[in-house]
């Protein structure tokens, strides 16, 4: 039996939209993250991946479903217990500018979690230690965020996130606001921290190339639901859901020779989470859609003979390159 640090079951989050009903940002999501590993959550913008991350961290209340972190049901906890549990789960956000209070020094920013939880001891020394851990010069402690580069700021945000030695960190697009040259450094830092401290990540991203060498498992999200989930290698080598295939085909990659395939755009727009009709939500954009797809919504189901799940009627049959 594998040890799942984070388990989400049947998560649902609806937002009321004035005069137009509700928007189902997250519409029945199940996730399991094994301790010490990385689960990548990928999908287009607006598919609900960030909302899922916020639900896991109890930054928002789900309308249905439950989240268990380290054996504790997050949304059922009282204020005091939740506060204690927050020590074990921390976020790293996309925009390191917005995530750091511009009126505080790096020292105060990184020390905040320690002070909130009355960590005691020599806080300034602990802060310098944390800065060294994320490969920042401890002398930066007296600087303000606007004096740092984007990569340095994101390191400060990571130092704050690991200050309380959390078991679980949700990284919400942690490098997509950074220069490409800096992205690799931050990603390597995240990997090193995982090796050293056994941190479990939920890595939210739209960058499949990044996910490929960071995550053990990948969940593909489309319009508030998981459409395919499985071990990273297997899923990238042999995607079973047409949406996954399109995402992989759309990802930009270096073209060395002219006959290398050019990236393909995913045709059409998402129908919008406001108007989910009958049938598969991907059917309007799917090159393989049949009459069945337009009337019957395929559930996420385990595919025999693999470790994978996919939500497609033709997950077994529609194999290679049809997209």
């Amino acid at each position, binding site marked *: 039996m594998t040890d799942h640090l984070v388990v989400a079951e049947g998560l649902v989050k609806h937002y009321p939209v004035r005069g137009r009903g509700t928007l189902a940002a997250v519409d029945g999501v199940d996730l399991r993250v094994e301790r010490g590993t990385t689960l990548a959550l990928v999908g287009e913008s607006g598919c609900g991946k960030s909302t899922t991350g916020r639900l896991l*961290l109890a*930054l928002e209340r789900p309308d249905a479903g439950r989240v268990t972190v380290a054996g504790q049901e997050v949304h059922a906890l009282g204020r005091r217990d*939740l*506060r*204690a549990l*927050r*020590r074990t*789960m*921390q*976020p790293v*956000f996309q*925009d390191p500018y*917005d*995530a*750091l*209070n*511009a*009126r505080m020094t790096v020292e105060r*920013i990184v020390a*905040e*979690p320690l002070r*909130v*939880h009355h960590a005691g001891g020599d806080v300034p020394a602990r802060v310098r230690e944390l800065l060294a851990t994320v490969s920042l010069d401890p002398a930066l402690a007296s600087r*303000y965020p*606007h*004096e740092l580069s984007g990569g340095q700021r994101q390191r400060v*945000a990571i130092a*704050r996130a690991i200050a*309380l030695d959390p078991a679980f960190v949700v990284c919400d697009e942690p490098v997509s606001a950074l220069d490409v040259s800096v992205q690799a450094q931050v990603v390597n830092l995240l990997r090193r921290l995982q090796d050293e401290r056994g941190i479990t990540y939920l890595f939210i991203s739209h960058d499949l190339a990044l996910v490929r060498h960071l995550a053990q498992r990948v969940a593909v999200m489309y319009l508030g639901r998981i459409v395919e989930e499985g071990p990273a290698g297997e899923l990238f080598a042999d995607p079973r859901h047409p949406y996954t295939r399109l995402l992989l085909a759309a990802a930009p990659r270096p073209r060395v020779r002219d006959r290398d395939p050019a990236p393909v755009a995913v045709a059409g727009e998402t129908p919008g989470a406001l108007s989910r009709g009958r049938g598969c939500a991907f059917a309007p954009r799917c090159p393989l859609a049949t009459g069945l797809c337009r009337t019957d919504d395929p559930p996420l189901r385990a595919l025999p003979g693999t470790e994978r799940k996919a939500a497609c009627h033709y997950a077994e049959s529609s194999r290679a390159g049809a997209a």
Partner: protein
Amino acid sequence: MNGRSRLTVPLVIVGLYVLLAAFAPLLAPDDPNTVALARRLLPPQAHHLMGTDALGRDVLSRVMYGTRVSLLVAAAAVVVAGVAGVALGMVAGWRGGWLGALVMRIVDVVLSVPFFLLAVLVVAVLGPSLVNVVVCLAIVRWPRYARVAYSTTLQTRGRGFVRAATATGASGGWILVRHVLPEVLPVAIVVGTLEFGLMVVYEASLSFLGLGVQPPTASWGSILSDGQQYIATAWWLATFPGLALFVLVLAVNLLGDAARDRLDPAKRATVTRRRVFRRPRTAEAAA
């Protein structure tokens, strides 16, 4: 003006007013309330630098004593209204829901009632006195602060650093004091300095109507309104208290501007860095 004098010049001016008010009994050349009809309406001269009023009272002495009332009432009104308004606005913005809606509707109601109607009502209930003028001004003006505190809190609530603090388990009070208040304060200070000038004028208006400071106690407002009827024949009556008011309000506004900039580390840093490195780019240094 460069970074330093932007703060010091208005600070010195306000300091002078405070000293003037504190030591009025020592500095004033004459008793402000001595009536001497023989020397009524004298123009400025060696013995009466600002002339005398219709009852022969020395205007300079009255302006000096008036500074006490004006400063005290305006400062107290700004502080009481500011603290109450900022606290209520922040809680309304943070909690939202029915509580936020309730507070902001009260704000709308208070702001929709004309100032004098409300002021007359409050003073009529409480009776005219110096303390009640402050209470009255605070009741009428706190919604100004509440509005800016409310909207700034709403904006800040959605920022990443607030979410990060929530995620570490910080309580609402912690976040309000450490993350939201530093955003609200600079805005509230600017509102406060603008309000300060208005409070001086409002106090004068209330005193003019007999709802404020009671005669013969001098305040700039009462001297001004006394002088109003002689404006064509005795210009000094309205000019000097008006000038005193003008300079004070200007200094306080400049002070508020400079204070707001100093509360912003990004702006503060550019000022210090420029001073340290003395970059020779004159166009930028002059700007």
